[in-house]
């Protein structure tokens, strides 16, 4: 009798544990959706699956590290390391130029850049304009389709901001900020979204700026080159030459899905 109790007891405990585990994760998933955590979680689930070369810490570009992989899924707001390093930086007095030309790509320095090649520009009216940076723009030049969020909808940092289809590549652009969409534009306008940031002002700690841009883009170019395949194909950028306006058109051979996945951080 006792042996029955022990044995069956153990068995049913195990069953209970298993079912609770599954139920719990289902319940939590539900909670996440209700608490608008889903987008963040998707990104957090995606990030580790990105190739290591896509996950470099921004402080590697600035030479503060020889090699470091980001462990915060590109969300520097949670990163003490980042805070500490920024605090240590000397305030550079020299007035920075208005615009950086990287391999012939314009990166206006009044904009803040997200690792997913979206830029954010705080407007005087308190909204933030969001668009694709020069590299991103050239990759999806004249997209087949653009799917923009509904006006009034809410977007989250590192969540999907809008979607672009280009040569069979289904690209989601990561949002650079949390906020509510107040207006939408498109490729022709040079910007995509106007967003009213949560908390009134843009928290830009995780966005790239000024001196970081050049080394970052340099790194991006290497990745682009790698993903475009063998370097012998013209027109090359290895020599720092200006990339064509529509890279896709220039590389008919390239697996465009792979290229966009590489640059836009798709898993």
């Amino acid at each position, binding site marked *: 009798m006792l*042996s*029955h109790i022990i*044995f*069956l007891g153990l*068995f049913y405990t*195990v*069953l209970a*544990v*298993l079912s609770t*585990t*599954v139920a*719990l*994760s*289902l319940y*939590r*998933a539900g909670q*996440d*959706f209700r608490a608008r955590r*889903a*987008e963040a*979680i*998707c990104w*957090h*689930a*995606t990030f580790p*699956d990105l*190739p*290591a*070369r896509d996950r470099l810490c921004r402080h590697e570009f600035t030479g503060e590290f020889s090699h470091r992989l980001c462990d915060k899924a590109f969300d520097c707001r949670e990163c003490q390391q980042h805070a500490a390093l920024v605090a240590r930086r000397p305030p550079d007095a020299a007035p920075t130029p208005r615009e950086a030309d990287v391999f012939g790509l314009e990166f206006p320095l009044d904009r803040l850049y997200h690792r997913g090649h979206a830029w954010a520009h705080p407007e005087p009216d308190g909204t933030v304009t969001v668009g694709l940076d020069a590299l991103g723009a050239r990759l999806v030049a004249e997209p087949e389709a653009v799917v923009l969020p509904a006006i009034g909808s809410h977007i989250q940092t590192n969540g999907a901001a809008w979607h672009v289809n280009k040569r*069979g590549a289904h690209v989601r652009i990561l949002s650079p900020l949390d906020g509510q969409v107040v207006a939408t534009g498109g490729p022709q306008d040079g910007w995509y979204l106007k967003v009213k940031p949560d908390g009134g002002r843009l928290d830009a700690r995780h966005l790239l700026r000024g001196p970081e841009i050049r080394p970052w883009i340099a790194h991006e170019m290497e990745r682009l080159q*790698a993903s475009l395949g063998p370097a012998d194909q013209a027109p090359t950028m290895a020599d720092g030459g200006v990339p064509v306006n529509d890279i896709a058109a220039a590389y008919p051979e390239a697996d465009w*899905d*792979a290229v966009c*996945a590489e640059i836009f951080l*798709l*898993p």
Partner: protein
Amino acid sequence: MPNADTQLMPRGVRRSTPRQFLLWILPWAALLAFGVYGAGLCLVKGLNQTHMDNRFAFGLWIFLDLTVIALGAGAFFTGFLLYILKKSELKAVINSAVVIGFICYSGAVAALLVDVGQPARFWFTFWHPNVHSMLTEVTFCISCYLTVLFIEYIPIVLKNRKLRQIPSFLVFEFELHKLMPVLAGVGTFLSFFHQGSLGGLYGVLRGRPFAFREGFAIWPSTFFLFILSAAAAGPAFILLTTWLVSKVSGKQLVRPEVLPMLGRISGVLLVPYILLKSIDTLVWIDSTSPARGFAAYQYYAWKPFGAWILFAEIVVFGLAPALILLRRRLRESPAWLLSAATLVCLGIALNRFVLTIQTLALPTLPFDPFMSYLPSWQETATFLAVVAYGVLLYSFSFRYLTLFPQEKDLSC
């Protein structure tokens, strides 16, 4: 269309063309179909389709079950090392290990369902369990652990490139993954028990002095030997499969240091196993068997199962690989590493063979002859069906899921 096919594969890894893949799949599928037909015959016409009989009540299938479950132990043991002992290097193979575990266990359960005379009554065991029977322990644990493996399999599937685009799946996977240590814990607990009770299965047969062993509490010594041997064989088997897959697919799947590490784990566990196994054998020869009126030598008087089988089991397939795997220099050389791993797996198979087949072949009644048995084609087909099923499931998993996270980085 090929595009849809590539859309399902993980990004950044190369896979064979649909055509090549089809050519690889087809023969296995055919084998599976053939095996399912054989198994179907056994289910419809009954077990008279096999060459088992009242004396050889167990045959090829039980041998298969014991062996694959031992080899499948890699799943639980790797999980145990990774999630409980936080041996993070094993991340590189855990997915593959889980899939292999799932294949082995589901295959074994399928074979068992064909093996019993009244498959429709399988749930009677849960209804009126005899808790003193090792088989009850096995049934309960294996069914539970199969569930565990299934749940562990889910995240791997949900991470498929297409499925992951569905946010709810990805979120669920994320939450489930957070609880993985719990599953690993339960899995380990269950595995320890059923690996053990599979050993107990024969150790408790006091009617079969060749298999009977004294033990601790309710468990004969074979209970513990099986746990150890399975834990040792599991990593070795993962090592072999990983190597095999990378040879077949022609890709580097894990960093070079991973396989030797697996080999080392196997070797470290093998040593105590061999030690205990030898002690157990001596005790059995010296007291357990004679106490029941059977001089141990007589078991080996029946050809072809001479004393060589004992030697092979302990020295050739036990001590030798253990020593190889413990020497860093040997371990590092693929040839040594792989041959050692192979020996370990073969050793487990031999050990299970001795316990299942030799035990039944030896007569117990004084005036009874030695029995021999050759499986029928239906039995063999069913056996092959399980193998084919494994290869197929693994091939598909390898093609469309991320079994080796390091592959992406290694491939460029």
